[in-house]
């Protein structure tokens, strides 16, 4: 019970931070918006996506990528709290041990909800349309959010190891970039060299993008959604206990 209350208190504090640093939210959304526009208008013409208009192909990729980038906010926020002594303050209080990390990742997931809404808005303006059911669309958002949330814990681990703001941010992006670009987020896997396809097809970003794409476009999703959820839960099951252990040993 204590863990739940304390997590809510810390989440509330982190949400206040988000509200009070709107510039961070702006920067967090400019990047995916820019990507959307660049890919739709600059590269889109050159990329063949059979059976789907490119903007409908792209937006699920952008959404997934954005939740992942949103997760890196966890690394930055945590490293900041470490450097400003807030973590020492929290650790000297008789509060639940998991609450600082849970409150951080939860706040970043809530932030991702807003960013997803914004991206869908921008996407709609440049021609993105839902072709599936409402339930499918909601399931797609849920899958993307869960994916970002699981990675938030990975980035929490990164921050607890690196313990320094810039370093934690760079290290997180080093994890994000290969996963996002060597995936089906922006271009079909079939256009890549054969040796790369093996990785690209099965890695969690592709699986998640594939699920979001199928669920928002009303095409057959097959086992993709389940596989994506399994990835997210697997990553959570590894990263969350590791992060809590590192936090305790700080």
């Amino acid at each position: 019970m204590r863990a739940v209350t304390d997590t809510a208190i810390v989440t509330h504090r982190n949400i206040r931070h988000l509200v009070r640093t709107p510039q961070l939210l702006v920067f967090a959304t400019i990047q995916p918006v820019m990507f959307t526009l660049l890919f739709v208008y600059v590269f889109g013409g050159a990329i063949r996506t059979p059976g789907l208009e490119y903007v409908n192909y792209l937006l699920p990729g952008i959404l997934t990528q954005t939740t992942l980038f949103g997760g890196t906010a966890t690394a930055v926020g945590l490293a900041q709290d470490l450097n400003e002594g807030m973590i020492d303050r929290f650790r000297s209080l008789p509060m639940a041990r998991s609450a600082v990390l849970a409150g951080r990742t939860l706040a970043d997931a809530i932030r991702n909800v807003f960013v997803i809404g914004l991206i869908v808005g921008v996407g709609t303006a440049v021609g993105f349309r839902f072709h599936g059911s409402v339930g499918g669309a909601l399931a797609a958002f849920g899958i993307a959010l869960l994916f970002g949330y699981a990675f938030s814990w990975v980035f929490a681990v990164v921050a607890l190891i690196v313990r320094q703001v810039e370093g934690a941010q760079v290290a997180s992006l080093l994890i994000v970039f290969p996963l996002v670009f060597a995936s089906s987020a922006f271009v079909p896997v079939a256009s890549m060299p054969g040796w790369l396809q093996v990785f690209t097809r099965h890695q969690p970003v592709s699986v998640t993008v594939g699920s979001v794409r199928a669920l928002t476009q009303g095409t057959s999703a097959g086992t993709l959604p389940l596989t994506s959820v399994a990835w997210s839960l697997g990553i959570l099951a590894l990263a969350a206990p590791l992060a809590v252990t590192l936090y305790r040993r700080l």
Partner: protein
Amino acid sequence: MAATPAVEALGLVKHYGAVRALDGVDLSVEEGTVLGLLGPNGAGKTTLVRIIATLLVPDAGTARVAGHDVRSEARAVRAAIGLAGQFAAVDALLSGRENLVLVGRLYGLSARQAALRAESLLERLGLADAADRLVRGYSGGMRRRLDLGASLVGRPSVLILDEPTTGLDPRTRIELWEIVEGLVRDGTTVLLTTQYLEEADRLAGRIVLIDNGLTIAEGTPDELKERLGADVIDARLRHVDQGEIALAALASLATLSPPGGPAPTWHAEGRRLRIPSAGGAATLLETLRALDAAGIEIEDISLHRPSLEDVFLTLTGRGAGDA
């Protein structure tokens, strides 16, 4: 039967890689008293404080706070202590009030209780006017006061302050001393580290002097001062390379201090010669003659009662602020 001490540490050892930050320190603070932990930069004060506040696990040794072991009963220790670390740990993006309410809520207070507690602490720390401004805009002194407030939210029985007045102006420092004195009157035990000997002299009933991770002296301020014996002559030389010559010149003066007593010491950083002087003004005169005869140029010389600073310099061979 003596009561269990509020804080008790035995044989604490902590390494950071090759650095031995603590090399077997014992410490005991009686309930309701103030212990001043004194030591130069890098002595191990913060390391010791962090172990007692459960933030750091020692490599060896044990520590108990309010009867609870810092390792196996960390949570009970946390419920008993209030910590104001060496650097203010306050949230810049929250207001002063929000900071204290946050801490109160995490101590398990209801929203209402936390708000009342925050209000009374803001009042007490002179932050009432700034209570609803973001801490981002607070001065360094205001942050420290808020940090102290955060450490008081849980009504700690043991208050741990790591250099609480470093960087404060003299007036704010005295205000903070008065707050601490008030808490002690109400029965709070205080463990305080400081580089200001005046602060230790005023607040602490007992002082533990540490250097290089080792306890080098311990006692009441008066006991420590007495160890230096009588008056001290403090001379500043013009040339740093004359220190050793001066010591040699003084070695032959029998009246300086009783045999076996403390000897003159030389501190190159401040070009200072410290001469324990049993004979008061007569020794001063002799000293001046001896130094003059040896061709030593003196910039400044004075005779005074030993202060804690003298204790500090004599025992650590360094000034409190020197690295």
